[in-house]
Every structure is written in structure tokens, then in C-alpha cells.
């Protein structure tokens, strides 16, 4: 699955959202299956805990279903879901009492699950040594939550500037500025490592 799979004007999304809005739960189930992986990844980038991310993903789709009547049909589904997921993830983290930026090893799947699809951009890392890869990943890990999210919005989910703004609940004109700051922070942490 690549970032371009989530084009905002996706006709399939629009028809599924419209059907779900009319009460077709099968359409909503299809949307859940279509987007649960990117939503889970977004949640995990915030909470850094697989259990909390799973709980946040679940509540994201329940909350989004309830919010369908107010969803703008012209807006992209993924940015909308990521915006909800960010709020749910923060809520999960608050309730768990976990600190903001401590990572926890990814736990083994216990409930229903499926293998993760390939991560876009990973192929570019193959030319790097394991030490370099670890240094880059570690630097990313030490970024603030907003910095991680804006980088993911643009480079992992492939969102346009407007969709990234929608996902991050910021003005469209601020996306590039936030992204620039996040990348600068990434370089700073990499240099300090």
C-alpha cells in the first residue's frame, strides 16, 4: 500500500462514505479494513505502544462513524481519520498515564491481525548501514509528537499539503513551515547522536 492509494478524491471512498452515512454498515466495515493500517500506524507514531495504538485505532473508527453526519463529503477520508486518531491516541496515552516520548518494544499480536504491508520509502534505506539506519530511526524517535506526525503525513501517507493540514488541524500555509522545522529537528538530533 503506498501513499498514493489514498487520493482525496477517491471515488471508492466517496461512495463508501455516502453509503455508510445512509446507514450501510457493510460500507463502513469496508472503510475500516481499507484504512485500519494507516490509522494504526499514525496512532502508533503518537503513543509508541502497540496496545494503546490498537485501542486508539478501534475508538477512532467508532468515533468517526458517529461523526459521519458532520463529515465533509468532499474532504479526504484518510486526513479526517488521522485527525480523529491523533485525538484518540492522546486520550489513550493520557488515560494510560504513559509518558509522552518513551518507546516500548512492539508486542506480539494476540487478537485478529494481518501482516503489515510494505512501508513506502524503506527501499531507499537499503543503501545505509545498520548503524546509520539505527541512528536515523533513533533521531526520529526523539522528535516531538507533532514533528513525527507531520513527517508521517507527508512522507509515509503521501498526503498533499491541504490534506496534511486537515490531518494535523493546522492552516494549509503552515504545513511547509512545520515540516521544515521537523526536518531541522531531525537533523539536529541525528548530529547530536
Amino acid at each position: 500500500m503506498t501513499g498514493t492509494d489514498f487520493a482525496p478524491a477517491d471515488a471508492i471512498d466517496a461512495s463508501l462514505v455516502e453509503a455508510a452515512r445512509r446507514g450501510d454498515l457493510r460500507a463502513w466495515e469496508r472503510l475500516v479494513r481499507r484504512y485500519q493500517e494507516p490509522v494504526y500506524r499514525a496512532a502508533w507514531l503518537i503513543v509508541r505502544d502497540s496496545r494503546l495504538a490498537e485501542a486508539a485505532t478501534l475508538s477512532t473508527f467508532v468515533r468517526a462513524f458517529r461523526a459521519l453526519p458532520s463529515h465533509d463529503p468532499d474532504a479526504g477520508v484518510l486526513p479526517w481519520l488521522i485527525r480523529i486518531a491523533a485525538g484518540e491516541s492522546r486520550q489513550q496515552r493520557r488515560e494510560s498515564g504513559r509518558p509522552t516520548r518513551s518507546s516500548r518494544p512492539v508486542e506480539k499480536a494476540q487478537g485478529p491481525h494481518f501482516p503489515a504491508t510494505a512501508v513506502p520509502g524503506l527501499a531507499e534505506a537499503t543503501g545505509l548501514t545498520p548503524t546509520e539506519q539505527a541512528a536515523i530511526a533513533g533521531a526520529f524517535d526523539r522528535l516531538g509528537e507533532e514533528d513525527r506526525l507531520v513527517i508521517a503525513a507527508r512522507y509515509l501517507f503521501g498526503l498533499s499539503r491541504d490534506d496534511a493540514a486537515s490531518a494535523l488541524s493546522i492552516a494549509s500555509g503552515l504545513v511547509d513551515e512545520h515540516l521544515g522545522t521537523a526536518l531541522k529537528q531531525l537533523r539536529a538530533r541525528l548530529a547530536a547522536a
Partner: protein
Amino acid sequence: MAVERRPDVVSAMADDRLGAIAVSLVVSELHWTPDVAPAVMDRISRDAVAYPEHFDRRPASRPQYPSLLPPTERSAQRTLGRIAVIAVIIALVVALVVFAATTSGSQATLAAEHLITFVTEVA
């Protein structure tokens, strides 16, 4: 032994490339994705039972996903109760009208007062 970290290689990367690689490396730690669809649909279907009025605004929901929206016993009992109350009130009103039409004015007034008191107590 080869030098494992080459500062120039990383620092020479374009911002876009560095950002894409960084987030990809971190997310690649996730080897599986939980399938939350069954739990989501279960939660939503329970909401449909607990808050049927929310789903009443969704006319297509029941025919297209009937198994998730079964009629509840509680709502059926509530409907039967309403029908019974309405039937009793109608019967009392009819009885009052018939009685008034067949008796004198003072008797009818007295009977009406008794009936109104009775209906008020029942309600």
C-alpha cells in the same frame, strides 16, 4: 573493519529523502497490524441497540445490515404498553359519551367527574 556510520552520507541526504527514510525505518518495526474491524462493527452494533434513535435517522441501515440491528425486546414491550394505554383512554372516552347521551345532565356531570378522577389516578 568497515566504518558503519558515514556522517557525510546521511548529512548529504536531501530533506525529503531523510524524512521518508526516517519514518519508514521506524514504522517498519511494526510487522503486523491488528484487525480492528470485527471489534469496531461489534461496538457500533451495540450502539445501535443502546441508541436506536441515532439509527432511526439512517433508513438504509436495517435492510442492508439486518443482523446487526435486531429489534429489542424492551422496545417491543414499550410499544405494547403505549397501545394498551391509548386503548384504555379511548374506551373511557367512548363510555363517557355514551353515558352522557343516555342520562340526564346532572347524572352525566357526576359520572364524568368520577371518570375524570379515575383516569387521572390511572395516569
